[in-house]
């Protein structure tokens, strides 16, 4: 079965600084990978997804992520964060042809002024 690990429960960065949120996955096959963001009192919203092809995928609001098969990782990056990026970020994985999307435990991002 597939699984996802987000090793950092909380990350604090200064506004304007760069960001990397880490995600490691475990899967017997090359999976589908996702990053979602959750703002307070909201559901999860898709930031970006990887199905195949170019390992660097672009998402909304300047976010990007890079798939690494050798490292079993799908880290999320942003060049310059804004205070409005403060939220909880979830990495998720599914198996092509399967149905279940498995979520990591989430990383709470706080952007300080």
């Amino acid at each position: 079965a597939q699984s996802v690990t987000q090793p950092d429960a909380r990350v604090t960065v200064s506004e304007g600084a760069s960001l990397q949120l880490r995600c490691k996955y475990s899967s017997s096959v090359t999976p589908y990978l996702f990053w979602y963001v959750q703002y307070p009192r909201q559901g999860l919203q898709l930031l970006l997804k990887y199905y195949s092809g170019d390992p660097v995928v672009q998402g909304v609001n300047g976010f990007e992520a890079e798939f690494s098969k050798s490292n079993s990782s799908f880290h999320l990056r942003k060049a310059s964060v804004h205070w409005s990026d403060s939220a909880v970020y979830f990495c998720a994985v599914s198996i092509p042809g399967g149905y279940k999307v498995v979520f990591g435990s989430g990383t709470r991002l706080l952007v300080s002024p």
Partner: protein
Amino acid sequence: NAGVIQTPRHKVTGKGQEATLWCEPISGHSAVFWYRQTIVQGLEFLTYFRNQAPIDDSGMPKERFSAQMPNQSHSTLKIQSTQPQDSAVYLCASSSTGGTEVFFGKGTRLTVV
């Protein structure tokens, strides 16, 4: 497209009472999921429907929880004899096919007093 609609947004029940949560998936989506979110357990998969048929309820507590999808436009999650430990945010999600990106509703926050 109004997205996935969940009602009510908040529900308070007394211990031992029944709670019914409603979900309207995105029109045309064949896959519907229910998740439960708590601080301690994070995002937990509860159950999955495909084309209205129950496919996987492996995450559902067996004794008091039930889910149905009587038609393609809505699903319900029913909790009988609610207990304080059932307090959580219940999220409904849908996707065009299982395993691909899922779209979440804003959730129902259930509080059992």
